[in-house]
């Protein structure tokens, strides 16, 4: 992309539109883990024949859509404990193998939600740090450092308007410098060692974002 594309003629993206954009960017034939919650929507937007193989950390490659009716089998669930189906070519394996796939660098892409992402790609998505919160990390830390490409799907601003793309995370970290791209409702960002590049915006401009965020933004191609 040679310049930041500003879509000022339309509003912010809804979660399905964000999921569709992520699905568009996942290379055909990739092995992909979709995090619990909104990232699971990405599966609905993968093109037929893309050859993308979904990994679920509770021990399966080749995960199919959510199970309905007679398909529901208590022995076949995804990482969110939701009954799912298996596709031709599916494989089952135990938990140590499942996480070795991540840490060993075999998994191409994971898509995770986030509380905060820093300008250098640090991720915070497991714990708010609140005194009464019960910490629960699941597989997030393993995914964050294991997948070759870690994509984040989130709204850019919290409900109270606070930016979630920040100079450095104030919530406890999940992983350091692990996120490569952040898909939000109003903009698409690359993050990394050289900072934040705005690739595309929806219903807002580069200059508006630069005014609302505490991080230094660069235009694509600069």
């Amino acid at each position: 992309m040679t310049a930041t594309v500003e879509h000022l003629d339309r509003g912010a993206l809804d979660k399905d539109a964000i999921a569709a954009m992520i699905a568009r960017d996942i290379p055909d034939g990739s092995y992909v883990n979709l995090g619990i919650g909104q990232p699971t929507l990405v599966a609905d937007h993968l093109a037929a024949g893309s050859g993308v193989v979904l990994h679920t950390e509770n021990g399966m490659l080749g995960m199919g859509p959510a199970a309905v009716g007679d398909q529901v089998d208590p022995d076949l669930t995804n990482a969110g404990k939701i009954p799912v189906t298996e596709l031709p070519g599916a494989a089952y394996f135990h938990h140590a193998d499942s996480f070795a796939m991540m840490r060993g660098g075999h998994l191409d892409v994971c898509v995770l939600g986030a509380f905060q992402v820093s300008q250098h790609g640090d991720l915070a998505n497991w714990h708010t740090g609140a005194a009464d919160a019960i910490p629960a990390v699941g597989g997030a830390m393993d995914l964050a450092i294991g997948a070759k490409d870690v994509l984040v799907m989130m709204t850019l601003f919290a409900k109270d308007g606070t930016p979630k793309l920040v100079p450095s995370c104030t919530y406890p970290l999940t992983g350091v410098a692990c996120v490569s791209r952040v898909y939000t409702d109003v903009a698409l960002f690359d993050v990394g060692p050289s900072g934040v590049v705005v690739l595309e915006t929806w219903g807002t401009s580069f200059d508006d974002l630069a005014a609302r965020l505490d991080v230094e933004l660069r235009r694509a191609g600069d």
Partner: protein
Amino acid sequence: MSRVTIHDDADAAVACVSDGSTILIGGFGMAGMPVTLIDALIRQGATDLTVVSNNAGNGDTGLAALLAAGRVRTMVCSFPRQKDSWVFDGLYRDQKIELEVVPQGNLAERMRAAGAGIGAFYCPTAVGTPLAEGKETRTIDGRDYVLELPIRGDVALIGAHRSDRMGNLVYRKTARNFGPVMATAASTTIAEVAEVVDTGTLDPESVVTPSIYVDHVLDLSAAKEAVA
């Protein structure tokens, strides 16, 4: 003479568990959770337990019932907080249970290490996060790693699909999850299975947990007949 003991009585299968034990309990949510063995463990009465399991109980059955019975001092898990984890949540908020949160892959790999005789391993998971605080770190070929120690169990309670009479196990779909790893990491492994088949009828190529790791098998189909 096979070393494994096949049981049709769940109470006999868990008779060996002592107070203060570390118990590895299989399952991811309810998939693969050995509910019949856990119910028997509650009747058996062992207490002051450390339980290692991915979650900290769902609803009011299985592991949640063991927690509710007040038998667990420490819970080691990756993901205690779920929408149906009210039993654990209450105990934790009342400070009646200790919690060690372990990233899910480290939970599996630390048990794998115990079962494989590995003294410790360096792992990139959790580097730079609160879960690495106080742990030794080391840079190898330019990448940072955290030293992780094995998790060994006195007893593993796991669910599998079938066993033969020697204790070779096969699993079903994602109910496999932690079972094969936990079976290797405990001094005594107790599996509950939907059915026990004759030795020689499982395809040796498809055995997931070889019998060497298995000590007791509860045959749920026989247990059902015994009750009926």
